[in-house]
C-alpha cells in the first residue's frame, strides 16, 4: 500500500444543485490511453472486446481521437499493437445529473439531444478541451486535472444563471 495520500482534483468539493441539475466530482479508477499502431486496430479490438468509432463510446472505451481511445480501467498487454499510457491522474471527471439539456446547451457547441448514451465527443468547454460522454448514470465530462477548478466554476456559474432565468420564467 502506498504511504502517500492520493487526492482527487477537487478533493472535498461538495455537489452543487441548481436548475434541476446536480454537478459533482466523480473519482474514476484507472484511465489508460490506447492508441493503435498502424494497421493494428482490429487486433486491439479483439484484445479489448471492441474499439470505438469516432464520437462513440464502446463499453468502457471512450473515443478520444483518430485511432485513439481512453480505457476506463487497466489495459491488458497490448505491446506491439498499441501505445498505452497511464492517464489516470491527468483528468478530472465531472458528473451532471438531472435535466441537463438546457445546461449542456450553455456549455458545449453541440446539440444536447445528440448526446445519447454511447456518444463520446472531444469538444471545447469554455476555453478548455473536454471529453464529453453520457453513460447510464448521466453526463460525464473529463477535463485536464489542472483546469478542474475553472471547469467547476464555469459550469457552476452557468447553472446559477440558468436557475435565475427559470426563476423569472412564466
Amino acid at each position: 500500500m502506498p504511504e502517500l495520500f492520493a487526492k482527487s482534483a477537487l478533493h472535498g468539493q461538495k455537489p452543487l444543485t441548481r436548475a434541476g441539475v446536480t454537478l459533482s466530482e466523480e473519482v474514476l479508477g484507472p484511465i489508460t490511453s490506447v492508441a493503435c499502431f498502424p494497421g493494428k486496430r482490429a487486433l486491439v479490438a479483439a484484445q479489448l472486446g471492441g474499439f470505438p468509432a469516432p464520437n462513440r463510446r464502446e463499453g468502457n472505451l471512450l473515443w478520444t481521437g483518430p485511432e485513439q481511445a481512453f480505457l476506463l480501467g487497466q489495459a491488458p498487454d497490448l505491446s506491439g499493437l498499441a501505445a498505452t499510457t497511464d492517464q489516470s491522474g491527468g483528468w478530472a471527471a465531472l458528473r451532471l445529473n438531472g435535466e441537463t439539456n438546457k445546461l449542456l446547451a450553455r456549455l458545449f457547441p453541440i446539440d444536447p439531444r445528440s448526446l445519447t448514451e454511447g456518444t463520446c465527443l472531444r469538444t471545447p468547454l469554455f476555453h478548455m478541451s473536454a471529453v464529453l460522454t453520457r453513460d447510464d448514470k448521466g453526463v460525464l465530462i473529463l477535463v485536464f486535472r489542472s483546469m478542474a477548478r475553472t471547469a467547476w466554476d464555469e459550469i457552476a456559474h452557468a447553472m446559477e444563471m440558468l436557475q435565475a432565468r427559470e426563476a423569472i420564467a412564466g
Partner: protein
Amino acid sequence: MRLAGKGLIDRSKPLNFTFDGRKFSGFQGDTLASALLANGVKLVGRSFKYHRPRGILTAGPEEPNALVEVLDPGSALQTPNTRATVQELYDGLAAKSQNRLGSLRFDLLSVNDYLSPFLSAGFYYKTFMWPRPFWEAIYEPIIRRAAGLGTLKRLHETADYEKAFAFCDLLVIGSGPAGLMAALTAARSGADVILTEQDTAPGGRLLSQDGQVDGAWVKATLAELASLNVRIMTRTTVIGAYDQGTYGAVERVGLHLAPQRHLPRECFWRIVAKQTVMATGALERPVAFANNDRPGIMLASAGQSYLHRHGVSPGAKVTLFATNDHARTVARQLKAEGVNIVALLDSRPDASTLEDFPVHLNAKITDTAGRHALKAISGTHHGGDFQLDTDCLLVSGGWNPTLALACHQNARPTWREDIAAFVPRPGMVPGLHAAGAANGTFSTHGALSEGRAAAEAALSALSLTPKSPDLPQAEDAPIRITPLWQIKGKGRAWLDFANDVTTKDVKLSAQEGYTSVEHMKRYTTQGMAPDQGKNSNVGALAVLADATGRSIPETGTTTFRAPFAPVSIGALGAGGQGRGFAPQRFLTSDQASRDRGAPMIEAGLWYRPSYFPKPGETDWRTSCNREVLMVRSSVGVADVSTLGKIDIQGKDAGRFLDLVYTNTFSTLPVGKVRYGLMLREDGFVMDDGTTARLGEHHFLMTTTTAAAGQVMRHLDFVHQAYCADWDVRFISVTESWAQFAVAGPMAKMLLNALLDEKLGDFPFMSCGEVAIEGVKARLFRISFSGEEGYEIAVPTPYGEALFRDLTAKAETLGGGLYGMEALNVLRIEKGFITHAEIHGRVTAYDIGMEKMVGKKDCIGKAQAARPGLIGPEREQLVGLRPLVQTEIASGAHLFTPGDRVERINDQGYVTSVCWSPTLGSWLGLAFLKNGRARHGQQIRLVDHMRKLDVLCEVTDPVFLDPKGEKLRA
C-alpha cells in the same frame, strides 16, 4: 395621452419610473418610449452633431433618436445608447437623456445648430487643418466632447452574460404572419423548428395593426406551435448570418427587469440551422423635408403601434403625410379612437380623397415649427399653400424590406420599381428563404402565403413532405406607392437622424466627387450610427442618385455587415469576462505553496510560486538570494510539473525524434536522457528540452512550460504532413505526472530518505523507475541549476503528498523550497536558456548550438542554413558582467563604447539579468553582434526606459562551473 380600453398593456400593473429625475408611471407592457409618450413627454434626446431636440421616431429597434442611458439601481453602472423603443418598462426603471451639456431642454451645445453652415459633412477635414499640432491637442478633443452619444462610467462590468448554442432543422427569423405560417407549416411537417422574435411577444405586425387576420388564428397557431415543440425565442434578435447555416442571435434575458443576482442581462446564441426562413418584415421610411426631425414627427407605423400595443395616442392634433395607402389605415384607426385628425397630406396627385377627415393631394411639406415639440407645419397641396397647427405628424415614405441578414455573405439585393424598394434575391445566403414583407410582399395575405411557400421550399431541402395548413382570411390591400424621397427647398432636411446627415450633406458629397455610395457613406457618416442606417440608407442613396443623375439601382447599396442590431460587448464576450478569459491551471502543490505565503505568478495559464518568504524577509530578492544559496549549499525542491511531457511510442519513435530534433535520439540508450533542440520549419529555434528513453520503442519528451502546446501541435503537424505512415504514436502526459526538481549537493541524500530502495549508481542524464513511499515513480537525473539535480515524477494524485514530504525532509537537511525567481537566477548563473533567449527570432547558431544540428536531416535544417542566418553579422548569445556592480536590466540595448547611442549603432540587446548571490555580481545574458568573438571586450549597456548606462564585460554565457563538474558529481 392614454386611450381608454386600447392596447396590450396590463392596466392592473402600474409601474413607476423616472426620466431625467422626473417621476412618471406607466403600465406593464409599456416600453420606455410608449410610457413617455403616454405622459406627454416628447423631447427625449439631443442629436449627435447639432444637438437638435429630438423625440421618438419609431416604435421598434430601428430607433435613431430616442437613445437614453439606463441607470442600474443600487450601483454606479449605466447602460448608454439604450433604445427607449426597445427598453421595456419595469418598476423603478431610471433613465436619463444623453449627449447634452446642461439640461435636455437647454442644452448648451445646441449652439452647434446655429453654427451648422460651418459644420457640414467633412467640415473637420477642411476647417481644422492649421496649425497642425492643434488637431490632436485641441480640435479633436473638443469635437469629440461635442459629438457623440451616451457615456460610460469606466467601471468594470459586473453583470452576468450568458452564451448558448442551439440546433434546428429550420430557423424562422421573425414571428409576424409570414414567420408564424412558416413555423406552423414546418412544425406540422415534422421539422425541428426555432422561431425567433426580437419583440417581447410573437406576432410581429399583428400586434401593432388591428384586423389584419382573425385574432383567434394567432392564438390557435401559437398554441399549436407550442404543442409541436417549436422553440419560440422572444426578445431575441438575429444579428448575423454566418457560414454553414450558423446565425448569431442576442437574447435580452434580464434587461426588461431590475437587475437580479446571477440573472444574465443578455444571452449570445449561436444557432445552427439546416434551413432558414427570413421573415424579418419591413421598416417604414421617412421623407426628407425641411426640419423633419422635430419631436412629434414620427413614422405612421409607429403611431399605429403605439395606438394598438400601448393604447397611446401619438398626439392630440394628428396630421399624416404619406406617399402610399398605408397611412390612411392609420388615420382611420386613430379617428375611430376619437383622435383629432387635422389632415391627411397625400403626396400623390391621383389618390382618393374620400375619407372621414380632410385629405389633400399633391401635398408637399416645406417647413415645420416648434423648438421642443412640433407646433405647426406648412407647405403646398392641390389647393395652394397651407399652414396647419398640429402637435404630431405621422410620416410614411414607403417600406424597406429588412433584408440585412440576406446580404451578410456579400450578395447584393435587387431593386423593385413597383414598390420602390430593394428586395432580396433567392440564394443570397445558402439555405435562406425570404418571405413576406422582408421579401417585398407587404399585404398580410401575401405574407402568410409566402411564409408557407418558404417553409415548403425549406422542407423540400430537408427531404420532408410538407403538410401545409390552409391560409386564414387576411387583409390583402396593395401598397400603391409613388416614391418621394425628398422635398427640395430651403432648410435642412434630415436623412440620417442618428448621425445628423442631411440631404445637403449627401449633395455636397456628390459635388466633392464622392459619388460612389460607399464613398458618400464615409464622407457624410450616413448609416454609421447605432441604427446602421436602417431609417436612412435607401433615402440617402436615392438623394445621391438624384444628385449624380443615376438611377437608384445604378447607385447601389452599401455593404451590409453583421451585427444587424447593436450588440453589447458583454454579450459578445459572454463566457470570456474576467477569469473566464482563460482557464487557470493549478499545480498539485498550489495550496501547499500558498500556505507558505508564496506569491503566485502566472506562467502561461499556470500559477507558480514566485518565492517562499521566511519570517523577516520583506522583499523578494532577500528570499530569492537565500533560496539560491540554499540550492547551491544543501538542497532545494521545486514543482516543475508545468513542463510539457509527451509520451512517444512505436517502432519509428526514434526516427521520428531524429526528424523533429536537430540532434540524434535513435542512438540514445534505454535508461538515458538527452538534451534536444527543436527548430521550426523556418529554421529558427522553437523549443528545447530533454527526452528520456524509457524503452526500446518508448520515449518521454519534455518541453518548456511556455511551448508545451506549440510543440504538441508541431509534432501532430509533422506526423500528419510528413510521416503519417510511420509506426509512431504520441500523447500528452503533462497532466498525468506531478514532477519535482530536487537540486543541490544534498539532493541524493534527500531522495534516499524517501525512496523505498536507496539509489545506487545513477549518473548524470540517467532515468529509471523507482518507488517512493510505496508509489511507482520515474526518476530523471537532469539539472537546470548546475547542481547535482534530479526530477522525480509521481502520478498526479500523489503530487501534493510528495511535495509536502519532500519539503519537510529538505528542511531537516537545511534546504527547502525554491520558487521561480531563484530558479531563474540559478539557470542564468549556469547560462541555461529559456524562452527569454529562444524568443522565436534566434537560430541554433545564435545560441552557440549550431553543432547540435547534425549531419542527418531534420525539420528546419535547410532553412537554418540560409544566407544571413550564420555569420558574424548575427547577434550571438553572450554573458555580461557590469564593470562596476550596479543594476542592469533586460530589454537594454548594447553599444560599442565610443559609438553614438543611436539605432544604427545598435549591437544587440539584453534578454535576462539577475543578481547572483553565488558570484556576488550582476549577470546578464544578451545577444551581441559577433558576440562569441568579443569575449573579454567591453560593451555599453543603455536602457532609456530605466535610465541605465553601464559598461559591461562580454563573457561566456556560462558563469558558473563551465566544465559541469557539479552537476555530474
